[in-house]
């Protein structure tokens, strides 16, 4: 399948040019399109289902910003929106070749998601950590290198891991204030190789949340215990028992 890509050089140039903008307009989108390069062969990937989901994401984003349950929890908003990203890419029939191609993701982020990435990294508390400015380290959120840092990659992985056998993505946002949980204790470590274990942790954190420090210690214990098990064949019950065992020590 043919799919669009944007390589690093135009990504870097365009991102620098667009600094200061909260959203890209038709002119900027045309500049992105001018650098588009198709890869792959055969039928062209139809991105219209994704574009439709992007509109839903923008509208849901606005709603959640005013929702008292979400307004101070940008990570939770990211979790809610991750479902729509995942569904949109699925509906667009994303081939594995594109999934695996960073330049495809770089095209997506510049074409559809500038608003989301800028918002996400201006929600931090301190001015000095706001990266979308001259001299800021903003490229790391756009260039799809580290999965826990690149906004789209971590959202896609988050939705993929949270998706349960019933087709629900709810665990992607069920827990509150879960930035550390996702970005430090699930996606970058071995726990992330086992969705059934990830979901058990998310269920437990939603029902009996640990605060930051106990959660960090508990996650460390789980990570250490993971060196003794290969949990790939576990059921929900197996994973719940394992997580309960560790959780109980940190309550």
């Amino acid at each position, binding site marked *: 399948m043919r799919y669009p890509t944007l*390589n*690093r*050089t135009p990504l*870097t*140039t365009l991102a*620098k040019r667009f600094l200061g903008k909260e959203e890209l307009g038709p002119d900027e989108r045309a500049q992105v399109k001018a650098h588009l390069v198709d890869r792959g062969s055969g039928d062209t990937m139809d991105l219209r289902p994704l574009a439709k989901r992007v509109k839903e994401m923008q509208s849901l984003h606005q709603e959640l910003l005013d929702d008292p349950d979400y307004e101070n929890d940008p990570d939770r908003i990211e979790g809610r929106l991750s479902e729509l990203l995942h569904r949109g890419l699925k509906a667009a029939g994303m081939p*594995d070749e594109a*999934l*695996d*191609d*960073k330049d495809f993701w770089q095209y997506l982020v510049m074409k559809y998601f500038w608003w989301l990435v800028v918002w996400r990294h201006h929600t931090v508390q301190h001015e000095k950590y706001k990266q979308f400015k*001259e*001299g800021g*380290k903003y490229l*790391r959120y756009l260039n*799809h*290198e*580290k*999965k826990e840092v690149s906004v789209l*990659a971590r959202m896609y*992985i988050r939705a*993929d*891991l949270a998706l349960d056998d019933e087709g629900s993505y709810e665990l992607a946002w069920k827990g509150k204030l879960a930035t550390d949980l996702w970005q430090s204790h699930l*996606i*970058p*470590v*071995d726990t*992330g*190789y*086992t969705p059934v274990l990830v979901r058990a942790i998310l269920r437990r954190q939603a029902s009996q949340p640990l605060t930051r420090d106990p959660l960090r210690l508990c996650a*460390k214990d789980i*990570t*250490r215990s993971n*060196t*003794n*098990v*290969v*949990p*790939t*064949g*576990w059921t929900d019950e*197996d994973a719940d028992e*394992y997580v309960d065992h560790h959780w109980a020590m940190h309550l």
Partner: protein
Amino acid sequence: MASEHRSSRPYSGLRKCQKAFQETVLRVGDVEVAHNGSRQVSPTEFLNERFQISFGEDRQSFATLVSELKTAADTHGISSDDLKIVVIASSTYWKITKELFSASLDEFTALDGPNVTLAGRHDRERPLTFTAKTLRIEAGCLLSKTIEKRPLRPFRKGTWLAKTHYAINPGQDFEGFEPKPLDAPARSDLKIKEHEQTQRFMDVEADPTDPATTDEDFGLYVDELTLRSLEENPRTLGTSLMQRILGMDMARAIIYRASKAINDGPKSMGDIKNSVFDNVLDAFSRDDKGAVSEDTKEKLFANVKATPEIFVSCVEDTLEADFGKDIRELASGGE
């Protein structure tokens, strides 16, 4: 993760079966990967070559492995029905995991020989189709169900009695030092604004021996027009050579920066564990089956402290065998 692979094994009587299991070798085409080893293959090999695992060098060593696994099971009073041998592949970026092989201990014992094909050219599980990042393959003998808990014996489903793992890098790993465009703002940030003809700049201000530092803290900058030209002409001899030379430039800068940090500290190998530079040392300390040799690593570490240029020359020596030939060809007017 710094603590991720720290293992605590509260079980007794498993040393011999672990030792026998460590003889297991993974093959990707003709490339062999040993216990806990890591190898690089080309994307074409990765996508087309057969993946095969050998549970021992021959029938005799396979029989020894089976015997050791049964002995370990007997020692702990574990029924052979409660054990299985699995091989699992995981895409390290996308966290997609698939089981490539699974057999009960009895089925495993009845195998025709030590070799099991995990993937052929046309039947590959998803993790074996992603070339952008390292593939991890784990093989182990583990409990297929939870059994009664007793001191010093494994009891939880999935707990392994013996295990090994391999890493296959299809050569397109994008967490390296990719060149960034050296344009006017970058020149200004790097304080070389007045040097408009500078073609390369290595930003190695960060300490590569500090475990908190990541690849992103370093920058390999190439003049923006030059970089565009390299990207638009990826298959020419000139581009191929420039890429290798740039890689060497960056390696040299990192090595000298690390040497200074180690001597200023001073720092031991333990102090730099899991740092960017520790990974560099690992990469150049692997034997022909991809396993890290601690002896080699210690020698390299000593070299970096005392004579960093020796390590630089070691790095250059590992470049493709055609490096010298390509330089000579270009010098004599080849394209």
